[in-house]
């Protein structure tokens, strides 16, 4: 359905120091590549670069492609790269359904169809009937699931995960991890996961240690 996420000789530097010397990476649709490394080694900076939100203090060169489309110069909103942080960042002024509707593209115009999409997303997240709830009344695991569904509803071409399991307690972690991998695999999206916990990586998936690059 979508192309692979490709990084070509990406180099990120700040001041006189180099964070990432040269990174080439090809993440196939449906594949999850895990980036690991100690804090400060540039994992989150790399994700910011891919999503287009890199702080101007950094200097980055290289190319980012999804399929055959070069997105390097595009503004974040035009990249179709979904991102999930360790905080769910559900917008507190909107209901759960409001958060999902915000993400659903306006191409879907008919009100009933929009509602159906949102109902389906809620059902997939095991949260049927939670639409009108205030996000603040949900549990941590529920909020994390809504955040993922929100990201997916926008129809991204690739997904970046910035330590999304970090704030969840141990029991919830495994559950949410499975939930994420299952949904992303179903949509055949290339996925890049940043973490410092070995257990977060997809079993049998590729793991890249950024220390080797720094």
């Amino acid at each position, binding site marked *: 359905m979508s192309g692979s996420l490709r990084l070509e000789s990406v180099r990120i530097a700040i001041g006189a120091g180099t964070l990432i010397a040269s990174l080439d990476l090809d993440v196939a649709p449906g594949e999850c590549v895990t980036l690991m490394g100690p804090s400060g080694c540039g994992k989150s900076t790399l994700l910011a670069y891919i999503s287009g939100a890199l702080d101007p203090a950094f200097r980055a060169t290289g190319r980012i492609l999804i399929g055959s489309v070069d997105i390097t110069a595009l503004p974040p909103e035009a990249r179709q790269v979904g991102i999930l942080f360790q905080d769910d960042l559900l917008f*507190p002024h909107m209901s759960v359904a*409001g958060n999902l*509707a915000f993400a659903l593209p306006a191409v879907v115009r008919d009100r009933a169809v929009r509602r159906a999409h949102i109902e389906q997303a809620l059902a997939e997240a095991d949260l049927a009937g939670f639409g009108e709830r205030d996000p603040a009344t949900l549990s941590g695991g529920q909020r994390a699931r809504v955040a993922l569904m929100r990201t997916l509803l926008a129809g991204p071409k690739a997904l970046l995960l910035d330590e999304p399991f970090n704030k969840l307690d141990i029991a919830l972690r495994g559950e949410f991890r499975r939930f994420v991998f299952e949904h992303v695999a179903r949509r055949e999206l290339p996925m890049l996961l940043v973490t410092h916990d070995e257990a977060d990586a997809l079993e049998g998936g590729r793991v890249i240690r950024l220390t080797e690059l720094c």
Partner: protein
Amino acid sequence: MDDPHGRRMGAAIHEVTAANARRGARSSLAWAPFLTVGALLLPIAAGFLGTLLPAFGYLPALGGAHFNLSPWRALVAYPGFATSVVTTLCIGIATSLLAVAVAVGFCAFASGRPRVARWLGARGGWLSPLLSTPHSAIAIGFAFLVAPSGWIARGVSPWLTGWTLPPDIATVGDATGWTLVLGLLLKEVPFLVLMIIVALHQVPVERSLAIARSLGYRRSHAWLKVVLPQIHPQLRLPIYAVIAFSLSVVDVALILGPANPPTLSVLAVRWFTDADIQSYFPAAAGAILQTLLVISVIALWFGAERCAAWAGRNWIARGDRRGLLAPAAGFAAALACGMFALAALATIAMGIWSFAAQWRFPDAWPQAWSLATWSRHLPELLAPFVNTMAIGVCATAIALVLVAACLENESRRHVRAGNAALWTLYVPLLIPQVAFLFGAQVLLVRLDFDGTFAAVVWAHLVFVLPYLFLVLAEPWRALDPRFARTAAGLGASRTRAFFRVKLPILSRPIAAACAIAFAVSVGQYLATLFAGNGRVPTLTTEAVTLAAGADRRVIGIYAFAQSTLPLLAYVAAAGLPAILFRNRRGITT
């Protein structure tokens, strides 16, 4: 750990902290909130009553022994009454709508643009000089710019317009009030921008925007849909204050507003100060009507807010990523920058006039420069200057003691002043000044206290205190409580911990808050006029009085002095902590 000395010391520390905890139950600062609220509300309540009673004919001192409606009949019978009310409403509503739209648009545009953000700084950076300049000084400078013989006309004459004489058009004081609206916007837009910046500290702006942008929303568009609704609750009271101010402003309306009929507040002031003391009754009725206008417009705004929120929710849920929102924000940002530039020009224009020897009409610059105006008027400038300084310093010092005591009381008792306290602070900013200052004056005359220095300081305190509290509360509450606990653990009493630990750490925000408070005091016109009964002239009262028709060079001197004084306070506020703690990088909060 086994040595007895250490154990004894540990026990001593334990005793000290236990004693502190006991004292916390009945804090020695429990008086602070009551005294503060009293200092604020007592004069307002008494003053409002002193206006309300004469509005219905009751003021025995002036022969009004019975309640009746004749003040209202006199008010309505005034030839320009209807026009005055309509103009007041139009000016107030137009100013509020435009100020909110431009400030919000500017912030939406500036969001996510690191360069603009750095320019604005954490607490408004370069906005400070604009915020510190008194309303009346900006208004006087703006009048210099837009008058038929003003700088703008000079800039385009005669090469573009062919004017060799000032054109016969009404700009300053035009009947529709547009000049007044613009003049007010020059101050209200920076104020709202600052309020938005402060509110943004409490919301994860960057990450909210990152999420919204990864979902396909453009920067300004994302800000309006995702950030604005989150900070809106904190903006509500500042916006109401802008509405109240725009509807009931006196000094700026005297300088820029329509004259015949004037806006309602100005009409009330005119009657209150009329030689015929019987005019006091319709004046009181006008002031009460002014209050009703403010309440009605705020209620209207509240309703409109609700409708807008409902429409906004539906609009957000449609998921539309396109639209004219982003360009509209860009347009608003351009307008805002134009206003900042106009305000800066206005300030510069005043300074230039004060040094002009001769400046004939179409010339863009004075033909000759001179210090003559300054040297001629310097002696008479001295008394207002000293008054302004003394009143400002006293009002700020008293306000600081009260606010620091309130905030320290809060942190000692682990409580936080709630919504009611916030509304209390806003009362002086929401109730029209005309509605309580006159009543307060009557009261002061009764107590034989009017025209005294202390009365003016108290009147200023009513307006200085809220600003000082609003500015200082956030950094004070954000201070890590473990600093005080550590000090206690080292055996320091609470008083010692307060003076030796907390105050120095907070020196920067305290200095900044004091500068703002001082600027507020310098800018007070009506409060000075009425509590001082005209006997305590300040730079602001003199400047506003002169603005009615004196030599521009002389007005320039007063307006220049009036806007320089708060600016110096800002410079001092920025410099003093920096000098005191020049080797301490940690003192930045």
